[in-house]
Structures are given as C-alpha cells and as structure tokens.
C-alpha cells in the first residue's frame, strides 16, 4: 500500500444535519489509495450519501480534516479542483441527467472542463460506445427507462475522465440485465472507486475490499463467517438462485 498514492484521507469527520439529534457521520476516518476499489455496505440512513457529499464538498463537515490528492481541502475553490478528478454517480439518475439529449448531457462535463465542442462530442461518443450505448446519442433523457438512465448517468460521469469514481447505490431500481451490464462495466474500468450499496452480492461482484458503515463510522470485517441458509418455499425442488 505504501507505494500507492493517497487519494482521499478523511480524519475525524463529523456531520450533523441541522435539527437532527444525532451525528449522521461521527468521527469517521477513511483512507483511500489510488488503484483500490472498495465497497461500503451500508443500511439506509447510515449517512452514506452524506459521506460522498462531504468528499465532493457539497456539504461542509462540522469537524474533521479532509485531504484529497495530498492537499487539504476546505473552501469551495479547492473542491472545484476535486470535482474535476473525482466523479460522483448520484443515487437518482433524474438528478444527474438534465440536458434534453443524451449526447448533450454526456458532453456537459467535458465542456465545463474547457474542451472544445468537437473534443467533447468525440469523448462523449467514445464513452457511450464503451457502455454499449452508441445508438442513444439523440435520445431524449427523460424518455429513457430506469436502467438506461443509470447507464447514461454513468457515462456523464465517465466522460469527465475522472481518476476516482464514487457510486451511490448504483443498483437501485435496476433490472437484472442492466445490473450485469453495470458490473461488467465497472470491472473493465481502469479506475479506482468506492461503491456504496446495501446489496452484498453487488458489492462483492465489483469490489475486492468490503467495509461496513454503521453509526456514522466505517468498519472492516475481515473474518469469514460460515453460515448456512435453510429456507422453504414452493417449487423449492426446481434449481434456483436467490438474488
């Protein structure tokens, strides 16, 4: 781990929503190195989205230190640089897709980074092709299905060519086919990422390192637990899988 560059370093981060009784994030430490892929298993309301928003500078922590790419960040200006290198996939694709057509939405990031129109279109087409969405260019964003929206929003983040991806519950509302496609896409990416989900199976399929988030903190559970499921249901004799 020592030869790897430290990308994200959170120390003692604490955050409480105004009016809330408890801290959502409570004295949390997180070190994230280049090239690593970690999964965070987190139940609803455990502060996972808050954590990502703190890393991106969308929320200001009440206490703690944030260091990203070796630099301490605290002001909006610092975070503007962070956002160019870290891509966040939002939980709700409708929040992310705001342009009328798919191509425009994917090109929005590159254009903001100062790329020319031609370059932006070129990058966007390549990104869409990588995700198998080549014929989506002229589609209208709000007329896409849930799964298509998710993949297109992934494209909008990838087109910024980030060094790190943060994925917030990427499997919400996905059908099996799109889920598989997403797993495949993530595994073939040459990117470091943190993925948060409450689905163990998905996290296990995309991240070699798994942590658990609970009570506003992150834990590492390395111990293997042997466990057996006994279950009963109709047609149980038929070969089947549980998703």
């Amino acid at each position, binding site marked *: 781990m020592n030869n790897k560059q430290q990308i994200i370093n959170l120390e003692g981060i604490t955050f409480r929503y105004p009016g809330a009784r408890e801290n959502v994030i409570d004295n949390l430490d997180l070190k994230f190195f280049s090239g690593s892929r970690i999964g965070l298993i987190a139940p609803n309301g455990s502060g996972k989205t808050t954590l990502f*928003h703190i890393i*991106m500078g*969308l929320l200001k922590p009440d206490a703690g230190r944030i260091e990203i790419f070796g630099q301490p960040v605290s002001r909006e200006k610092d975070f*503007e640089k962070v*956002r*160019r290198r870290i*891509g*966040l996939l*939002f939980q*709700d694709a*409708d*929040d*992310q897709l*705001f*342009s*009328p*057509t798919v*191509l*425009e939405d994917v*090109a*929005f*990031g590159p*254009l*903001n*980074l100062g790329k020319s*129109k031609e370059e*932006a*279109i070129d990058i966007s087409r390549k990104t869409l092709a990588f995700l198998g969405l080549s014929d989506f260019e*002229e589609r*209208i*964003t*709000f007329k896409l299905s849930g799964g298509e929206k998710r993949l297109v929003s992934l494209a*909008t*983040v990838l087109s*910024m060519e980030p060094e790190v991806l943060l994925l917030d519950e990427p499997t919400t509302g996905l059908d099996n086919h799109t889920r598989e496609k997403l797993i495949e896409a993530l595994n073939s990416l040459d990117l470091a990422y943190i993925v948060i989900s409450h689905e163990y199976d998905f996290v296990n399929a995309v991240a070699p390192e798994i942590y658990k988030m609970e009570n506003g903190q992150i834990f590492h559970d390395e111990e293997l637990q042997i466990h057996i499921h006994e279950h009963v249901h109709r047609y149980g004799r038929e070969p089947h899988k549980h998703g």
Partner: protein
Amino acid sequence: MIEEPFAVGNTYIYTLDPRVRIVFAVVFSFVTALSNRFPVLIAALFISILLVSTGRLKVRDVLKRLFVVFWFLLLIWAILPLTFEGEPLYQAGPITFTRPGVIMAAQISIKSTAILLVFMALIATMTVVTLGHSLNRLYVPDKLVHLMLMTYRYIFVIEQEYRRLFTAIKIRGFRSKTNMHSYKTYAYLIGMLFVRASTRAERVHQAMLCRGFRGRFYTLDIFKSTGRNQTFVLVMTIIIVCLIIGEYNLL
C-alpha cells in the same frame, strides 16, 4: 402533459432548417395579425391551410388543437357584436348586433386560426429540444433558452411526483368534494409538490457542480442543412411581400 404529436415526420416541412421555419412563422404571424383587409386575411388563412397540408399532419390532431381556440372565439362572437358601437346589422328586440362588431369578430377568428395553423405547420413539427437550440442559434439569450429546456426536462419529473402523491391520496380513499377536508388535501398536495421540486432543484444543482458547472451552458448544435431551404425562403418571402402589398395597397 406536453405531447408532441407533430414533432416527427418525413414530409417536406421536416427537411427545412428549423431556424428558417421559426423566422417565417414569426414574420407571417406579425403580418397576419397587423392586417385588416379581408382578401389579405383570407389569403393568409389559405396559405396556412396549404402549409399544414404540405406537412400532412393528422387532420384529427389539427382540429383537436384548433378546438382550444374555438372556445375563445365563441366568447368573442358572443360579446363583440353586442358591445361594439356602430351601425346596427340586425335587431332582435332589445339586442342589437352591430356591423363593426361582427367584422371585428370575423377578423379575429380568421387571424387566430391562420396564425395557429402556421405555428402547427412550422413550429410544432419540431421537438421542443430542436426549438430551444434553434432559438439559441437565432440569438435568443442562453439563459432564456436553458430556462425553457430545463422546464421542459423537469416538468415530466414533477408530473410523475404529482401522480405518485395523488395515487397515495387516492388509495387511502380520498374523494374530491366541496369541503374543507378536500381543499386542505389539495393544499398539502401542492405544497408537497413545491417542496419536492425545490429539493430536486437543489440535487440537480449539486450534480451539476460535481460535473464542473460554473454558470455557463453550452449548446451542441447538431443541424443538418439541406438545399431545399432556399426555395422555401424565396416562396415565403414572395408570399409575405404580396400580403403586405395587398394590405397597404402599395401597387
């Protein structure tokens, strides 16, 4: 919600540059609206019908849209002939229909129908997205264009949220009646919709910040230009000039 029954097609009109169509629809509307002579107005109506038929728009959809104006026109016909002062045309007891009133009502009817038809033929035959981009290319300010496109984008999301809320109300046995409970429920529904729209707006803004948004929008123009534009421009210009000549007796 917003339907675009005419937006996609493959007739002549669809091959024209959207900017050309917008410009001529606007110019034609102004000329028609400012004309008062019946031969000119009827010519304008005739041209608008001709344009709609070149687009081969479905007659039923066209009539459905015209119907909206008919109510307005009915109101005009009910009020103007009775209230406008001037030479009486017909007298039925205490009620007098005046000649200038009837003329005025007829002018308004022809003008509004002609303008509506032209807009159906030239503007409704493009998607809202294309319309936005074309307006941008016609030097309409960025902010206005993006306001329009964003509204168009999120009106569907807000509609979905409205439907979800309304289903939630319905499955718990709500029936709209004229009482305090119903009014209160509707007020909550609308209030909730505003709250959700505003939190949604906040999240969209955050997502935009994450993608490096700095207050500037960019439009990718993807226009296909074809050679047919020139003929259309020429014909339409001649028609409009003729209308103006007819109106002001310039010959």
